[in-house]
């Protein structure tokens, strides 16, 4: 039965994907290292915001900058998490083993990206309510809640995808986390601007905010698509270099 034998030898991409993703999640559940450090970092960012806003007075409407502040916290925590997720792979020789095994490179990329996306989303789910309670009390958001979720998702997908790619480069460079941040911020600029604009429209409301929201989210999704396609095409070169 040559077909069955071939099928047994060739594990499907989907199963490879699941195996890598499972490995990341199991490792995280055992060590809980990434989630704790990322959440803690996000909380400390909120403390820094408190310091920054401490003299702004009670008349200051935090909603004007709320979306920006939240995204800023996500950017910093995601850089921390992205760096850690690839440093683990490198330190323990896991990346090399993955490259030696007959796994398609794009599968590695997608599995790592989805893993990072899941961790980022968990941190976001922890951070956003705390931010809302700590800074937004008495100032309700104008748009429906799903708008916040949707713009958050679009922005996070971009961060996780491009970030995983850049983190793979950064672990092989001197001064890894520094390199990641200087590569990440200018390259993510358009995606982050779209994300902040989308979330801000939902928070602030005002005339025509639905239109503004869809335009921002649409742009964000388009930018995600272009960047992810490019990164997907280039990942094979990066990871084998």
């Amino acid at each position, binding site marked *: 039965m040559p077909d069955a034998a071939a099928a047994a030898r060739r594990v499907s991409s989907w199963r490879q994907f699941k195996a890598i993703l499972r490995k990341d999640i199991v490792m995280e559940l055992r060590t809980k290292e990434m989630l704790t450090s990322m959440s803690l970092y996000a909380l400390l960012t909120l403390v820094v915001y408190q310091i920054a806003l401490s003299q702004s007075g009670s008349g200051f409407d935090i909603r004007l900058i709320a979306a920006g502040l939240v995204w800023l916290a996500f950017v910093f925590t995601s850089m921390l998490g992205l760096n850690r997720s690839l440093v683990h792979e490198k330190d323990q020789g896991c990346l090399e083993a993955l490259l030696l095994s007959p796994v398609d490179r794009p599968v590695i990329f997608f599995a790592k990206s989805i893993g990072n996306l899941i961790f980022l989303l968990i941190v976001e789910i922890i951070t956003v309510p705390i931010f809302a309670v700590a800074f937004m009390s008495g100032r309700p958001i104008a748009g429906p809640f799903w708008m916040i979720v949707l713009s958050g998702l679009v922005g996070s997908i971009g961060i996780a995808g*491009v970030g995983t790619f850049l983190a793979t*480069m950064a672990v*092989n*460079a*001197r*001064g890894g986390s520094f*390199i990641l941040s*200087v*590569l990440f*911020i*200018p*390259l993510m*600029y*358009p995606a982050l*601007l*779209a994300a902040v*604009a989308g979330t801000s429209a939902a928070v602030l409301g005002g005339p025509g905010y639905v239109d*503004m929201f869809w*335009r*921002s989210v649409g*742009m964000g999704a388009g*930018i995600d698509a*272009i*960047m992810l396609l*490019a*990164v997907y095409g*280039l990942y094979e*070169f*990066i990871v084998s*270099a």
Partner: protein
Amino acid sequence: MELRVDKKRLTFAAVIAGAVLTTVGFVLAFLVAPPVLADTTLASGGGAMIGGELIANPVLFSQKIFYFHVPVAITSFIIFFFTALYGLRFLMTKDKAFDTKARIATEVTLVFVVLTMITGDLWTRFEWGKWWVWEPRLTTYFIMMMLVIVYFVLRASIEDEERRAVYAAAFGILAFLDAPLSFLITRLVPSGNHPVVFKVGGGLDAIQVTTSVVALLGMLCLGYAIYQMRFREERAKERIEALKASLED
């Protein structure tokens, strides 16, 4: 061999043409091209509104800087395209020469980007009264400058030659994709309060267009010449290194 001689001649010709054309462009800009008059219908007492700012002098002498600024900016975009193009060629062929070409192209881009930033800033200072405004073109340009600088930071942080070339090529391609996206997003998702951009293309007459085109051609020639000369220098360096290595063996 013949091709190389041709390239040398071409570079020389480009230097001469660049020098002549940019000089002619300058002379035209200052002596011939009439200034774009500010829209005085918006004026309140002799001044004019440009970019949401009240300008005291309706005849704007400082706009001459545009005959330098715009050609330099366009040239920087064109050269940056070659960073991405050579990066792509390198990834396809793994030929080291393309890596060198991409690096030199990025160096030349940086020169032109910095020139654009300086001239652009002079403009904003004199016409908008501010050194810096987060306005779509300026923001995009600032991001592009960061990307170009970061390209070299990335290169400097990787020791392995092969890996450095691959990473730099990949980053160059991404950075080139990023620049138009930044422009698009700052345009289509406007922030609350940014000034309306002064439109250069609005009411230019023939002589103004000619001046711009002459200056642009000059800048392109200069860009090409700088690129070629830097590339020849780098190739000579690489050949010497290769010779040294073969002597040691």
